[in-house]
């Protein structure tokens, strides 16, 4: 269950999303690099670094786009619990 993000925490929330994206995408890039290195490039190191670079680059681009979105501070989908309703 995800809590709604208050407006004063929206920027911090965006930063959290950026960092998590960075970690995830760099991991995916490294994974793809490892697989391609093992299959096609005879266990060379450069595909791993290339995958990492691609992942970090994509994460940077996504973060840049997210941080540039202004002015609407949209709230994430919230799941209202029975306790909050009460």
């Amino acid at each position, binding site marked *: 269950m995800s809590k709604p993000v*208050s*407006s*004063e*925490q*929206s*920027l*911090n929330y965006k*930063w959290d999303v*950026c960092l998590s994206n960075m970690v995830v995408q760099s991991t995916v890039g490294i994974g793809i690099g490892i697989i391609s290195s093992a299959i096609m490039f005879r266990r060379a190191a450069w595909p791993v670094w290339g995958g990492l670079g691609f992942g970090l680059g994509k994460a*940077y681009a996504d*973060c*840049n786009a997210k*941080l*540039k979105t*202004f*002015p*609407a*501070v949209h709230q994430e989908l919230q799941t209202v619990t029975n306790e909050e309703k*009460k």
Partner: protein
Amino acid sequence: MHQQLKTVRKHLPLVKQNANRSFWVHSVQNTLETPNVKPEPKKPSSPIPPTNGKEHVRPDGNAKGSKKLRNSFRLLVFLGLTGYAGGVWYSFEDPKFYDAFAKYAPFGDRLLPAIEHSWVGYKFFGGNKIVIHDKPKMMQPNASEGVSSDIVGQAKRKELAIPSELKHSESSDRESNDKPTTKPNTEPNTSAEVKENAKTVAVSDLGLDQETGLSVTAAPVINQTLQRAHEEEIKDQTRKVEASLNEANQLRVQLSHLQDEQKDVYEKRLNSKMEEWNSKIGELLAERDQQWRELFEQEKQLQQNIHDSRLHEELVRATAVYEAKLKNELTEQAIEMERMHLQAVKAQVEQERGSRLGKLGELRSSFEELQKLARGVIFDNGRMTKFIDVQKALEKVEKDVNLRNSQSLEKDLQDLKDATQEDQLSGLAFNVIDSTLQSGPVLSKKELQMKFDVLSKEIYKTCFLTVDSGFLGHMKSLLLSQLPANLFKSPEIQSVQNVLSEARSNLMADDYDGVVKNLLTLSQWSRALSKDWIESCRRKLELQQAINIIKGSALYASQMQEEGKE
């Protein structure tokens, strides 16, 4: 001993035969001969030492290719050399080819003369086509015998040409000089006299020329032939020649005189012409100089005028710019002075307003105290019960809202509804309270203050952002916001800080309306971040206003009730 040697020699071929037998035969023989003796273990042969170096693997294709190339190169060189040698040989056969070869063949002009003058040229190619002898023929010991048939023929021809009288005179001279023992022979002998004549007539070789190396032949003796020729004719001829020579000399002298005269005439004419042309050239040059000076003066005047006009334009422009600049400065000063005046006026107005507002605030607070006292008195007297009921219900509701006691809140709201059901305005205010409570939690003052502290920090972090700030802009803003605020003097950051401090002071004074107004002056990220806080503040304001409306309405209704009773 001898027998032993014989046996050894006898068995030598057998030894050789044995040595040629195979390994297996030897091993079988050894085992049969010595069964109990183990054969010595075969020592491993020494390993083949590794050869350090490249393996010469010659692909056949490359070897063949290189051989072909080498052979073709050799053939080319050989053909070239033979062709060149053939050209050299043929150049000595054909003079035209000699010239062509010397001109066009490489090193031909140097090679051909070198060969020609060397022993090879003289031996094989004939050199300069001139016969060279070591000693002249006349100096040779057997000259008379060795005289060639050509020379003999020449002597015969010359002998026939000489008149007989001269011959006889010569012969008589010779007889008088010598001691004659023999009679003079009038008839020339074919062999002896011819030979003698040939001696005198023969072309005499003087030897090799030291410079050129060619053999030099002496010219035939002219005096002797002239003596034999007709003297009178010769004398006539000489006289004629002398006369012609004299005439030629005279003519030469005349020609030289004429030449001198003509030379003088031409020189005079040349000098006169030179003077004439020099004077003309001088006049032309003077005229041209005059024209050039005039043109120069005109051009100079023109350029001067252009320069003056440009200078004037530049001066005008510069003065206009300077005047505009001065004007701008004056207007800036005027604006500044007006602004200062306005600021002073504003400050004065604010001061007065503050004092008046302070007075108004005092009045309000004293009025509220008075109201409380009056209510207390009325309550004690048992009057305005309706208002008191409503007020009690409102206080309970407020308490439940502050404490977030949802269970009693419903009951208290119901009580409030019952108390305000008669009044329409109170009913509307109650609906507002109900909807506000349903839209979200209403924060207390402390909670609002705490949230505002968090909000102000977040707003300050976004002070350094622009409209299109991305990742790097946000990073920069985060880093700069960690530094003390006093370092930054830019008006934007200062304005944000002023707004936040003003809002805080309003919040401390419970002026939620003022806080909301201050926060609404912010823009961009600051405005977006303060959205939720403004919403919660508005909710609190709405609730408070609804409660005030209900209170006021209930008070009015009670007062009206009291007046009706009276």
